[in-house]
């Protein structure tokens, strides 16, 4: 599990999420993103949108059994603008 603080000015909004979901969908592993008690399938744009992640909020990324993929996806979320 990797914890990330979102720096993107407008949080996780539609366009960056679209790119992220596309990346996540390329993996066969189960990928979840959580904010507080809410957890969402990272391969579903709608579920990710429903998390409503804003700038400065902390989220947790988990890629089941694939730390390399987790590092790549976490890096994308960190660098998202």
């Amino acid at each position, binding site marked *: 599990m990797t914890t990330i603080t979102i720096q993107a000015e407008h949080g996780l*909004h539609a366009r960056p999420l679209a790119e992220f979901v596309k990346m996540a969908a390329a993996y066969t592993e189960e990928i979840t993103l959580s904010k507080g008690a809410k957890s969402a399938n990272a391969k579903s*744009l*709608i579920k990710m*949108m429903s998390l409503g992640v804003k700038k400065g909020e902390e989220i947790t990324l988990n890629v089941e059994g694939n730390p390399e993929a987790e590092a790549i996806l976490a890096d994308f979320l960190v660098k998202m603008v």
Partner: protein
Amino acid sequence: MFFKRKSKEFTVLAPTKGKIVPITEVPDPTFGEKMLGDGFAVIPKDGNFCAPFDGVIESMFDTGHAFALTAPNECSALIHIGLDTVGLEGRGFTILKKEGDTVKAGETIVQVDLSVIAEAGLNPITPVVFLNPDKMNQFSLTCDGATITLP
């Protein structure tokens, strides 16, 4: 004599009044290159943005600039009002429905002051993107929106 089974058609209305164009005409790769899926776009002439079909609001951004709707047949669409409109932080957007609300086709979901989008120098083109290609066989534009042929 035999009967050809007619495939089910799902009618999708444009979310607002305006010109309907293929999604490939949206000048943003996320939409125009179908990164999210197929769909269409409308160049709005009116600030009332409605449900394109009967369904449940699955997601609504706090800023009102985008929402997702899911139909009982499980087709889900993202309606993104204007490009880069997230930066308006809700200015000019009035949200009338919330997540979890059941809506009818044509029911207003967000009211937008299009002059705010214009003054900010943003493009008001509104893509309607279908997020689950496995739920649709064929997609065609009509004068009112689009028709999807269901599997």
